[in-house]
């Protein structure tokens, strides 16, 4: 997704708050927030709470938030919001108990002393951008051909297996894989500077939470938006 597209989306969020804009926003940023919260030692329950709380907070502050198109400004602001929310939860035993326990406070404390949370936030953010790029490619491509690409390039299946699942011929699988990977690289730009894009996308996929978490979060945030 281009910077211009992202700016348009955020401007929509500030002014119109259209449901579609919020859906897109959520789709882009919830994995970042979730991955960071989990890295900071939050349980699955608590991480989901952090996602919901942060998105609601942004929604509530939409009138005062002004997007600056200078690269990284929104990223930094969002990072600060998320780090503050996670810190609040760690300070509040009642919050941890409400979240069902399982928060690894000791691990989070150890992380505080290691290489900065800011670096980890950056890594989580980069993962989310790669997932957003993959999402763009997925929506553009024919479903069978996208699945052939995903199975061979990201799941490392054989072309024969991908052909069997998709019903495509092996030749078409090969062509689809090349074409879609090229499209992904074109969109990724600087993210492919080291030529490791498929590997980095695979790493980003591994950071995604389980499908049931994704469904649960999608539902919770939609309900929150309806009630906000």
């Amino acid at each position, binding site marked *: 997704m281009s910077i211009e597209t992202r700016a348009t989306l955020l401007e929509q969020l500030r002014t119109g708050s259209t449901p579609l804009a919020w859906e897109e926003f959520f789709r882009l940023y919830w994995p970042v927030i979730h991955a960071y919260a989990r890295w900071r030692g939050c349980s699955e329950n608590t991480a989901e709470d952090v996602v919901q709380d942060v998105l609601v907070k942004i929604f509530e502050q939409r009138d005062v938030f002004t997007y600056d198109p200078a690269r990284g400004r929104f990223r930094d602001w969002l990072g600060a919001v998320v780090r503050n929310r996670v810190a609040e939860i760690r300070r509040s035993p009642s919050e941890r108990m409400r979240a069902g326990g399982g928060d690894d406070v000791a691990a989070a404390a150890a992380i505080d002393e290691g290489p900065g949370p800011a670096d980890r936030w950056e890594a989580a953010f980069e993962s989310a951008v790669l997932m957003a790029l993959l999402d763009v490619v997925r929506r553009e491509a024919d479903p*069978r051909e*996208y699945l052939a690409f995903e199975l061979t390039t990201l*799941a490392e*299946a054989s072309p024969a297996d991908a052909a069997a699942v998709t*019903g495509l011929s092996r030749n078409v699988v090969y062509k689809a894989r090349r074409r879609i990977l090229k499209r992904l690289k074109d969109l990724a730009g600087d993210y492919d500077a080291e030529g490791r894009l498929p590997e980095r996308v695979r790493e980003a996929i591994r950071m995604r939470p389980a499908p*049931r978490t*994704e469904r649960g979060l999608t539902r919770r945030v939609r309900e929150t938006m309806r009630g906000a």
Partner: protein
Amino acid sequence: MEDAERRAPETDEAAPAIPDFTLIRKIGSGGFGAVWLAINRATGQPRAIKLLPRRGAGASRELTSLTRLEAHARQKSPHLLPIHHVGETESHLFYVMDLADDVTGEAPTATAGYQPATLERRLQEGELTPEECIRHARQLLGALASLHQAGMVHRDVKPANCLFVGSELKLADFGLLTDAGPDISRLGTETYMPPDGRMDTRADVYAAGLVIYEMLTGLPADRFPSLGPRAPEILRDPALSGLVRLCLGASCPRREERFSSAGEMAAALEEVLEPSGPPRPGSTGKRIASFTIAVLLAGGIAVSALLLFRPAHERVDVSFITAPYHDAVVYLDGEPAVSPDGTLYRTPCTVEGVPARPTRVEFRLEGHPTLDAGSIDLAESRQIKASWPSGEDR
């Protein structure tokens, strides 16, 4: 019946008055109406009642469609949520339905804690097992095929409208039901609507493909066709791979490449599963034989007897498909095949627990000559397909 269910429960004061029923509270909404938990005042039976506000010219068309559906659902498909009554008040159209199971798996009761068990709720726990995917895909497509065969279109197929009643999936929420035709308006849930915007039988097929995709992967429909973490398991399992191909054929963005109806999709499902379907309940693959040897010694007479009991026929599940028409009643040895809930099996279908022996198979469809498939050994054949000759008029 529990006394508690006969006591007048607390009611929501905003509930409109519906003849013979006390509305207790809302348990769902969608399709321009709300679903209420209700109790039949005379019998104490808990029911679900969908209320559709009467607004403009659409209301009478909905009533007509629902009345047709009421008659159709009773007779045609065990996997459409039964409609017991369709009616109207000054302010609302309403129809009375079975309640879904409670989310705990228990039978539904009109208590404060009741929450309907839907496929949407089930998916919040993760993807379904392979056996569940196949069973519920068959049930969903059977219900939709029945509607399409009757010339109707659902227009709002999604997990929230798939209920579990007795652990069986039933398609519900008929608020957007309409007659199939060229000018059907674009209504429904955005995620499940095809990009071409035409809300016809192929649109129902598109949505059904996404629902089956969600069952398979546990992912939300808008992640289609990504397989997520279940990709390795799907690659290894021919049945799951087959279901993925089915979804790709159904939820194709290009309308003309989709199955034209749920009946066609259901037949494709059986084709996909037939070579390597997973073992189904009751199908052990072995003949069971038991025999007893009794040796009797009495009064100097030695008697030995070998009592060989005839091997009991194992029972198997058999699929029946007809073309080009569906909804034919399956007859086995001259008797119609009847499901445990008393409804007739209609093609395409899978009849469970059929004796694995030579059986006379016929298909009967109103307006057509009987299709006699002859005597078929069901121990050897688990999928029976038959066709009416081309040029057959309905």
